[in-house]
């Protein structure tokens, strides 16, 4: 065991002296996470919309629109409503990016909505502010539907009654229909807000870059075995009174430790500098440990499939990027069709990111990551065991 530790320590020292290791293990993932986190809007889920409204009507109906649904938007804290003077001013506000969308209530709208003439609220939207357009449209449509209900009630009552409409009767119907509109709605939309198990985008990029580069960091140890074989130092190690297992273990241990330290540094640095939120530290630690195990196992196995360092390096890169793409480290799987999400489950990357998603649920702890941790360990142990056996054979036969 002492020999294994000595080999691991010597490998680590060598790695740390070589700047490439530092770049691959820490600087590149951190740099990419930082860039991606800044260029892609974080989308913290809060809205800050700006609407202009030009009320050319000034009737009780248009006032009801302003004081009802529009005031509701600003009370909910998601929009700022600015009254403007006239349709041209409203259009200009949208064009000049002073408002994201504008409502125009044409003169005579209130009058028309009481009769049976067509009436329209106009909404001007800008294509690059689509959420403001969607919400504006929903709000206006909902208001229009309520007016429509009153109109339709009167017309339908007249049609069903089969009596020629008498102006007094219609006025009576209209006023009771308007009263009826304050009754509880026939369809109630019950909104249930659910917790979402998904990390925010900064954490996502930090985590996905960490697991992506981990597969390169973890390959240092197995690769150095091939390197020592080429240089002939492996034969000398075998000639020394060291058990072959100690050599293999030492080689694996070096990059295992490097993987844990590098990921740990990334977790701390991305939290402090990039504002990532990884969740319960204990859960993250367990997940990272399991992920490093999986990465070490897979790279160990892949490396022993190759004969030369170059071959192994190429093969490792291919496996690492393929697993990374399928596992959702470049493109989040939540955006992809379901089938891709299922394919992703063969990769350690997807399980690692899933585990972090679970930790994003407030007050979740280690219990939430038991399944991902278990799967990662299983992947690591199975591939690692095969890899170690093959690596031992490689050592024995030099």
């Amino acid at each position, binding site marked *: 065991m002492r020999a294994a530790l000595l080999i691991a320590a010597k490998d680590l020292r060598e790695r740390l002296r*070589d*700047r*490439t290791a530092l*770049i691959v293990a820490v600087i*590149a993932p951190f*740099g*990419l996470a930082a*860039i*991606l986190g*800044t260029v*892609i809007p974080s989308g913290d889920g809060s809205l800050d919309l700006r609407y202009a409204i030009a009320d050319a009507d000034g009737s009780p109906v248009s006032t009801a629109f302003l004081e009802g649904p529009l005031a509701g938007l600003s009370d909910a804290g998601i929009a700022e409503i600015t009254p403007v003077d006239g349709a041209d001013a409203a*259009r200009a506000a949208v*064009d000049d990016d002073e408002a994201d969308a504008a409502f125009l209530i044409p003169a005579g709208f209130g009058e028309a*909505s009481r009769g*049976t003439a*067509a009436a*329209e*609220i106009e*909404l001007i*939207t*800008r*294509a*690059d502010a689509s959420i403001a357009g969607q919400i504006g*449209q929903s709000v*206006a*449509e909902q208001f*229009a*539907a*309520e007016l*429509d*209900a009153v109109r339709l*009630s009167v*017309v*339908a*009552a007249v049609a*069903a*009654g089969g009596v020629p409409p008498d102006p007094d009767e219609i006025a009576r119907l209209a006023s*009771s*229909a308007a009263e*009826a509109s304050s009754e509880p*709605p*026939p*369809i*109630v*939309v019950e909104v249930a807000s659910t*917790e979402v*198990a998904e990390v925010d985008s900064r954490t996502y990029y930090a985590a996905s870059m960490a697991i992506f580069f981990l597969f390169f960091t973890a390959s240092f140890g197995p690769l150095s075995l091939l390197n020592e074989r080429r240089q002939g130092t492996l034969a000398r190690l075998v000639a020394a009174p060291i058990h072959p297992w100690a050599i293999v273990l030492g080689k694996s241990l070096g990059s295992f430790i490097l993987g844990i330290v590098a990921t740990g540094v990334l977790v701390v640095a991305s939290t402090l500098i990039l504002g990532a939120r990884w969740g319960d530290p204990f859960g993250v630690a367990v997940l990272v440990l399991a992920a490093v195990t999986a990465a070490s196992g897979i790279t160990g196995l892949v490396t022993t499939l190759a004969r030369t360092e170059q*071959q192994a390096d*190429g093969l490792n890169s*291919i496996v690492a*990027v*393929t697993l990374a793409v399928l596992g959702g480290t*470049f*493109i*989040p799987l*939540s955006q*992809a069709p379901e089938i*891709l*999400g299922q394919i992703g489950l063969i990769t350690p990357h997807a399980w690692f990111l899933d585990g972090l*998603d679970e930790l994003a649920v407030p007050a979740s702890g280690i219990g939430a990551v038991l399944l991902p941790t278990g799967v990662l360990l299983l992947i690591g142990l199975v591939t690692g065991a095969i890899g170690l056996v093959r690596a031992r054979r490689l050592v024995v036969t030099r």
Partner: protein
Amino acid sequence: MNLFKAVAIARINVVRLLRDRSGLFFIFVFPLMLVLVLGLSFGGGFAPRVGVVATDSGDLGEELVEALGGEPGEWEIQRYDDADDLRAAVRSGQLGAGLILPAGYDRRLRAGEPTTIELITPPQDTAFSIRGAVEAAVAGQATLARAAQFVSEQTDVPVSDAFETATQVQAEVPPIGVAVTSTGEAPIPASLSGFGLGAQSQLILFMFVTSMSAAGQLILSRQLGVSSRMVSTPTTLGTILVGEALGRFGIAMLQGIFIVAATALAFGVSWGDPLATAAIVILFAAVGAGAAMLVGAVARNAEQANGVGVFAGLGIAALGGAMAPPEIFPPIMDAISRITPHRWAIDGLRELAAGGGIVDALPQLGVLAAFATVLIGLATWRLRVALTR
């Protein structure tokens, strides 16, 4: 300068790269894999997905679902059979929201019985837009139910008959509605739906990264003394430099042509004006060649050059909008991205995909030509020093 010799030097550079099996994966397979996954994930646009459970909810239930998915590009509707699956999908972030219509929705509405729809949303404000759309679609149907209720109270006609009457009348009375006019241009044009967006960004990302990964070769040649021996032969330094530059350029071109052709054939990506597309690919290949030669001339060992080259290539790609589309960048990053050649190349490709010709892409072509000239100039100067040292 001996062009024949220069081409021979260039050729051997390309051949060395093609002999590396794993290199072939990164040149030919990996970019297409990324374009495929990107297209499958974002090709349908960035519309949020809304899951719907509408089992036994009848015609009116279907109508409501249709109304919700009706506005083009607004919500992508996905059907679920089981409410628990739907809840799990909202929880995992696969769905922007979930809507559960009760069984017998249609029957209850026609009978004048109050009905409840369940909408499951994430806690964020952004869910407000989905909630608004659902409430607007529901309000449209509630109009009929309200009118039916009213008619039944006023005339003693049963609610279900009154519902029919209201439905008939609704078709005759002009509605009170909302007229939407949209101005401006969508940040990501419709012409880039499908695989176009991914193909453009991966073309630029990979041409550059592949060039950079070839930078290591140059150092290896220097370390092994191949370069010094070439200098000692009756070959002018100029010829060697042109050959090395042509080699890098050839590698980038090979990949560029492959990605353009393969995505056009396999995924039906329309790149736009072929001549102008070729101009962008050629100039960007020159930019990549220049950058790779510069790294190859300045870096001390091959590992360093490969490591730094590839990761710097990825970083510049991310910054220049070749990973996430620059259209979604915040204003500051949008400005910063213009210091990268990637951004100019992508902007140029966007112009062409939108139907523009070589004239529309002239500013971008000009900037790329400037980048290429400066990089190749610097690289030639540094390499001349490195080779004769």
